[in-house]
């Protein structure tokens, strides 16, 4: 049996260089007809293959540097402020799963309608120890990946990630430490562009006008547009 297979494989190996023909005694169609196996001779047992698509990442991240610009909105302010932020972010991808991150965020605060009414009608300004800027570092982990399809020719990949950060925040009444938890989706466009969207929760200590300290929490929704550099396959 082994000899038979070897013979078949040897015949296969020389086939690639076929250029000339040897005249067949019978036509190809006749030869094909002769190949019919007698029906229902094979034992009935059947087994189906399970198929998986196993692919390299389209954007391999190992050793890549990612620089992003972001815009975000704080959905959990004190009720009198609209707080938006713009940021610059740097990631170093240790591998496809883990990365280090460094963030710097500039925060823009303005009175919202409630704050404006309070100011205009009551001549009062909310006692808010609002954020002015923030710098932190941390680590991120790509939990799972997926892909979605646009039409019949385009497929986009994404990673779902979680991140933990720690750093300092500059508040109206001074600097204080801050820790954060981040969850989001990173979409990869081509080999170099990324678009991240997610939510960040930060915890930090604020001081009221009377000097009372309290832990505060914010929740920032953001969009980050990034560019990948370096890496093993870029």
């Amino acid at each position, binding site marked *: 049996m082994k000899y038979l297979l070897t013979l078949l494989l040897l015949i296969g190996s020389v086939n690639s260089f076929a250029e000339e023909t040897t005249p067949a005694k019978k036509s190809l169609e006749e030869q094909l*007809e002769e190949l019919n196996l007698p*029906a229902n001779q094979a034992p009935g047992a059947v*087994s189906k293959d*399970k198929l998986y698509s*196993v692919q390299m990442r389209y954007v391999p991240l190992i050793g890549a540097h990612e620089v992003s610009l972001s815009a975000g909105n704080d959905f959990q302010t004190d009720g009198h402020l609209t707080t938006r932020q713009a940021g610059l972010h740097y990631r170093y991808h240790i591998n496809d799963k883990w990365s280090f991150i460094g963030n710097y965020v500039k925060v823009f605060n303005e009175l919202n309608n409630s704050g404006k009414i309070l100011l205009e009608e009551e001549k009062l300004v909310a006692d808010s120890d609002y954020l002015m800027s923030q710098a932190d570092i941390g680590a991120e982990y790509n939990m799972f990946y997926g892909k979605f399809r646009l039409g019949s020719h385009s497929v986009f990949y994404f990673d779902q990630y979680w991140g933990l950060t720690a750093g300092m925040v500059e508040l109206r009444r001074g600097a204080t430490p801050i820790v954060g938890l981040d969850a989001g989706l990173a979409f990869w466009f081509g080999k170099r562009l990324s678009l991240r969207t997610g939510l960040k929760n930060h915890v930090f200590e604020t001081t009221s006008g009377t000097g009372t300290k309290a832990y505060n929490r914010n929740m920032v929704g953001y969009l980050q547009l990034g560019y990948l550099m370096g890496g093993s396959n870029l």
Partner: protein
Amino acid sequence: MKKLLLAGLILSASNAHAIGGADVLLNNVSSDDASSEKTIVVNDRTAESTVFEGFKLNDPVMVQMFTEWRTAGKLDYEVNSWFMKLLQGKYEQASHLLSVMNDKMPSELYTHMKVSEVYLYHKLGLNQRFFDSWVDLLKDKKAVESRIGMTLWQYVDQKAPGFFSKNAIHITAAQAETIKNVENANTPFFVYANAALALRSGKEAYQSLISIPSGHPFKIPLAQTVILDMARNNELGNAGKVLKKYLEPEIEKVSDPYVLGEYYLNLARFLYQAGAMEAAESYYLKVPNKHPQFTQARAELMWSYLRTGKTAELRGQVASLKSELFSEYFIPEIYVVRSISNLKLCQYGEVEKDFQNFITANKKWAQIIQSRIKEESPKWSEHKDFFLKLADQRVAAIEAEMKKIEELGKKSIKAALPAVGVQPHWSKNNKELAFHLQEAKKKRIVEYKRPWINRERILAEAIKKMKFVKIETMSQIRDLTRKNITLGNGNKASDPLAKAENKLVFPYDGVFWPDEVLNLKAQAESLCLGKAAL
């Protein structure tokens, strides 16, 4: 070169004095060149330079022609007129007079006449006729070895490097013989002519391969011819050396994705033939997915997977290739490989299906192949390789040249000639070209039949292999029936997720995503009772 030109001019100046200066010429200028006559003053020594002013002595042939014409003594009016036209660069006018001049030219200038003919055809862009007339001249040893003959040879050598590749020159068997029989034929013309002849000569192309410089369009096809021939003769070591020394540097230079893909495929084939399966697989996988031979590469990859026992990869590959996406491609070996793999896993029911699918899929191809081979002018709508393109270019070039000559023939009726009608040499030229065209068309048919004949051979080989599989399948089934053995329940025979740590894995649900094609791996089960029989 400069020295030659200078010497020619000095010589001609002194000779002009000796035979009476420009007046000889002026007396012989034809009426259709009246405009130039007006500028010349008879018996004025300065007139010589005025007459020669219009001369285009910008290559050795013209310089030599001028020199020898000036030393030829008193010539007929028409002969001088013709030389004037030639030397003034009025090539078309001079070419119309070739037949007339043949009768009038004194015997001592007969060689000059022949040389001029070759030269004029080149100047007029009649490349096939230039080649023909030059090869004809090569038969006349005396003419070729004359001073003007040697100068023409020098001119031909200058033009030789790109001549054959750009103009797709057709070389007849008789011309090939003439070229072969010329003594000391190692000048550029012979190097390139022999390279053109060697394109399909197997290992004999090696001499041409090493003779032509890097970057020449023939370099890659010559290298491929040599390598293929060596591979056929199982001289894989030598083939590898040629590949490394001659083909790789050329491929780097041209940076053409098609050439690169073809190189990867050929390299993979050598490595497969040499038994270096892992290396072969890596090169099969490098053939880009838009390359015309991409499916062929993937089909050959299946054999490598089969030999290395990579069942998960093999069956995944087969699942993609047998899908509707590839139904228009000629890949007869899919079911051969699949049936062998199924036989290995004792999946006899699947083997039965493979036979049915093999017959159904290939019947259509058998009909197409056989009808194409029988056709007088078979068509090939897929990618055209170097030889198919060359065959097309050759026919197109001859047809274009025939058209050009027809135009020249018509113009010769209106030209100021001491003869009437289309000049006989134009008609003769087109007759010669008609013969070339007939031959070139015959060769093109052979080229266009080649891919179909190859497919016939590939399909015949696939059928032969299926016959072996059939015998083995029937034998195993008979054995099972005789011994009353029932098949097993299925043992895991392959692990698609092995070595997939840094990869993306998605289950395949029967719908192909564009990125999943040919990236499938299969978890197969063996129904054999013990270890797989094969």
